[in-house]
């Protein structure tokens, strides 16, 4: 999946930074770490999934039954870029 040209919001930037720093985690933990409210976090994640930044999957061990991680493309991009901001 290719990452589309996408203008990241501050919250999206924060979500991706935490995922890049800490690795895969549950959306609820992501919400707690970013201080973004859970409903808003899920909404952000759905947008990021559509644009190829993250992947969400089921996980029965997680308290909210889900797991989120960066896609390889997003990870590569993060490795070669000092900022997540993508120019349109």
């Amino acid at each position, binding site marked *: 999946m290719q990452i589309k040209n996408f203008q990241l919001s501050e919250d999206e930037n924060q979500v991706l930074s935490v995922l890049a720093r*800490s*690795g*895969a*985690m*549950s*959306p*609820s*933990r992501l*919400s*707690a*770490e970013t*201080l973004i*409210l*859970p*409903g*808003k*976090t*899920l*909404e952000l994640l759905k947008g990021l999934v559509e644009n190829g930044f993250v*992947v*969400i*999957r*089921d*996980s*029965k*061990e*997680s*308290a*909210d*039954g*889900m*797991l989120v*991680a960066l*896609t*390889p493309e997003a*990870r590569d991009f993060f490795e070669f870029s000092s900022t997540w901001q993508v120019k349109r």
Partner: protein
Amino acid sequence: MDTIPLPVNIPKPVKKTRRGPSVWTVLIVLFLLALAIFLVLPLEDMSVQTWVPTLQVQLLTGFTQIGPITIVILLGAIVGLTEIISTFPNYPREALRTRWAHILVLVNASAAGIAYLIALKYAKPTNPILLVIAAGFGFQALIRTRFTLAKQIGGSGEEDVSLNLGWLYDQFQNLSKTQIDLELMNDRQSAVNKLLQRFSMDALYNIGMHTVLARATLTPEEEKKKQTELDELLKPKVPEDFAKASMALLILETGGQAYVDFLLEQTEIALPKPTKPESAAATITRLAQRYPSLQDLSNICAYTIQSRSNLTPEEKEARLADLEQLVNLGAPADFTRASIAQLIIETGGQDYVNLLLSSTEPSLTESATPENVVKRLVDTYSRDELVNFTSTLTDSADILNWVKKAAKPDPNINEANQKAAIAHFLVYRLGVDTVLKGMEPTQTS
């Protein structure tokens, strides 16, 4: 990641106390050094016992005779070792420790030694160094050689007429390889099982990524390939159990057995050392609190009495009668529970009761990890109760506001996810200990 979810009831790895290989190496080197000094000393010029120079001469003669065959045997063993290492490049150390690896090395060493002895007996006298090399390497090459006598023109090679001197060795080598692989598979399975028990999928994924990046021996292409493997496993279509097992296997293959052992050891939680013995009154209180139901407590007491082998049938009967009397006394419930608890301690003993309590208490690992505390919060409280619970833990307006906002009904998210987020938030902001302490009244009521 900051925290690694830890296991539930994982058996502790057995730690074997054994003398390190370095000690044995030093001892062997010292022995060889002493032997070498003894052999080269000009003892005939010294005033020593008469048997000492004789022993020196005998040893020198002996070494001159067995030296060549020792070298040949060593060369054969080296060839066997090389074969195993090249066949199992991912697990060389583990492969060399297996029983069939020892057999393969032994066969190679013995075959080289026998070839040397035969050559020594039947071949024309020749340079001993040449004979050693011929037997040590030449014979090994010969038993692995296939001579093609007639080659099919333009064929694939299958129809060639050939003399395969190595057929027998091939069979043996295949057998050894299969057996070593089976032994390794058992070890791998055990290591993978432990990883699966100890780590959740996100932890395995993160450890896998870290392991791949940490290995200095991987080329950038190999690194990329393994990262892609991990990413593929994380895709929603891959079943969770399969994904976890494959991630664990990748960690094992990339990091090796020693690395996995290290990982497992690092995530062990040290059990608290026993403190001073608990008073009988404290044990009674704990027992009564652990089993608030009078029925449960009296059943345990009855079972304890019945199962004690050191009591005579009369004593058992008397204690059961006491129990019945206590239950039917109509006394206040607290008094009855405490009395039955005391009867259990008197009958079973302090150690028995400690065991009883520890087996029913949540395990240390279960209660101490953030992930487990989050799950317990989610299981114990409703969304609104979590808000109230937060207010009992802290006065911080920031925290209370965030929790209240997070708990507001939202069409984009279900209640379970809201609860999980609040639970993570509380553990993340207030710490495991504070949250657990706040939960205590709920757990014991």
